[in-house]
């Protein structure tokens, strides 16, 4: 008998840092029913928090909390230093040239809207074109549709191939001298497709177009290097990378951000204000009007420390094992269709359909088995239109998941098939 393969990381050890994962759900003491163990497989929606992240925010509130950049006092200096330190952590995490290129927002959605409003309104004109893809989350579709309405910009769409990957060979036919921007995801939130970011960026550059990468599903799971990508904007969220809600990042090239007008007006974003006018402040403050999410930014910094400690390469390698396990388990079940590309092009997201069982019914049975997944269109209705299905069931993994949880997922799907479907 061969020895078990060595895993890239130790999920059992890491899980000890996540109290929320160690619980039973649907217990009913009145009936002596102890409930079922929780298996959290909804990480594409949001991830859980290790004690270290929670503690960093507790420390902030108990010891250093104050407003940043403003008060001339001890606590304010401490808070300002902590926020600056978090900004530098993000910079290093992305391999970004400068910390001032890191703009703290509320999340991916706000980051993309910031670019659409600020850059889009300032630099796009009627007749200009923006290319988006068929697999985008609504957050990377609707802001461009709104810009198209405001400015008369034309949207063009890069299609999904039948192999579950973007039809990148057709991209040159969508690009021309009117193309201002190509906005696309690094990892599909439904199919798990890993897109060829550097290749798409290189093609866009050939016609002088900018690129925005929705990295909400990639930054938490694999090493990011904005310089090797060569792109112009990157957007992602803290809460999908074991960080707090309410904080996210827009990274942009310095000279580009510096050419853009402010998005929101208010305190903190100005250089000088008179009664009738203002001059905008320096980066990054120009895009951070109002009091930022101070404790959450500090929490995001702690999340990055934790992820660096585990190692992004180890996380990605381990998630490949989990995804392969999910394909093995679900792929063996008759009537189950797994959507998306083959394993080598896929991150830790597995969406599937069960023949003759509605996705909401699948999710309900899984939920009763303690398995948290998402059912629905996952904020990607056009993609589901392309697949020809109204909804799907999605299991999405992180480094604290185990292959045993995926076996339980398979058992629960079988139970759903037994309870529903296959009758007439």
């Amino acid at each position, binding site marked *: 008998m061969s020895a078990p393969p060595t895993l890239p990381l130790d999920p059992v050890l890491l899980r000890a840092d996540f109290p929320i994962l160690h619980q039973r759900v649907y217990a*009913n003491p009145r009936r002596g029913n102890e409930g079922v163990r929780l298996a959290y497989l909804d990480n594409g929606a949001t991830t859980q928090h290790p004690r270290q992240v929670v503690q960093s925010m507790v420390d902030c509130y108990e010891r250093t909390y104050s407003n940043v950049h403003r008060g001339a006092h001890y606590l304010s200096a401490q808070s300002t230093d902590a926020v600056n330190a978090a900004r530098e952590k993000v910079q290093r995490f992305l391999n970004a040239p400068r910390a001032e290129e890191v703009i703290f927002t509320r999340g991916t959605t706000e980051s993309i809207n910031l670019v659409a409003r600020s850059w889009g309104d300032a630099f796009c004109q009627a007749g200009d074109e923006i290319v988006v893809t068929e697999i985008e989350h609504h957050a990377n579709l609707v802001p461009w549709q709104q810009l198209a309405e405001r400015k008369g910009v034309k949207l063009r769409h890069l299609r999904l191939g039948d192999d579950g990957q973007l039809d990148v060979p057709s991209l040159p036919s969508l690009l021309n001298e009117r193309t201002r921007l190509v906005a696309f995801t690094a990892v599909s939130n439904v199919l798990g497709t890993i897109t060829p970011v550097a290749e798409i960026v290189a093609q866009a550059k050939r016609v002088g177009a900018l690129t925005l990468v929705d990295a909400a599903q990639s930054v938490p799971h694999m090493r990011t290097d904005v310089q090797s990508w060569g792109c112009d904007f990157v957007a992602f969220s803290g809460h999908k990378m074991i960080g707090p809600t309410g904080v996210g990042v827009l990274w942009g090239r310095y000279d580009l951000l510096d050419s853009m007008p402010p998005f929101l007006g208010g305190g903190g974003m100005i250089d000088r204000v008179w009664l009738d006018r203002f001059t905008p402040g320096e980066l990054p403050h120009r895009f951070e009007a109002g009091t930022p999410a101070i404790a959450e930014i500090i929490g995001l910094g702690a999340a990055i420390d934790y992820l660096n400690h585990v190692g992004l390469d180890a996380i990605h390698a381990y998630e490949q094992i989990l995804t392969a396990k999910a394909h093995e388990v679900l792929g063996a079940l008759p009537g189950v269709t797994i959507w998306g590309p083959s394993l080598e092009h896929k991150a830790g997201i597995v969406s599937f359909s069960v023949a003759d069982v*509605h996705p*909401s019914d699948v999710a*309900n049975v899984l939920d*009763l088995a303690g398995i948290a997944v998402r059912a*629905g269109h996952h904020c990607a209705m056009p993609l589901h239109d392309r697949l020809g299905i109204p909804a799907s069931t999605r299991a999405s993994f992180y480094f604290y998941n185990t292959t045993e949880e995926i076996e339980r997922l398979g058992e629960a799907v079988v139970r759903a098939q037994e*309870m529903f479907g296959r009758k007439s």
Partner: protein
Amino acid sequence: MKTMTVAELASEFDDCWDETERLKLILELGRGLDPLADEFKTEENRVLGCQSNVWVVSNVTSGVPERLHFDAASDGETARGLIAILLSLVNDKTPAEILALDLDGIFKQLELARYVTRSRSNGLASMINRVRDLAQQRHLAN
């Protein structure tokens, strides 16, 4: 589908040992739902806020006082069971009687509260709102 009292429903659900048994009972009740003709499965009759499609229509019965009879359908089986339970509670009652029912409280009593709070996946909260709206419209029209 026959009308059931809260006590009858409670007694059936009380025999369920766990959530899976409870779900099986929900599905069984859903299978007793009278079919709804396809012509009534319109956008107007569709209940928004449900992941599966749910359609609800109401008809006024003859006689005094007038009573409401609801019919419904869904392409999701859990949703069909939930709407069947809801209709068994409200069918053939007067609008005033329907409006007087604490439907959220009843589902809580049946230990089905999880289906009300998880409104986005099963839409029970939206179904309750639709039935109450239809009863309210009829109540105001009288």
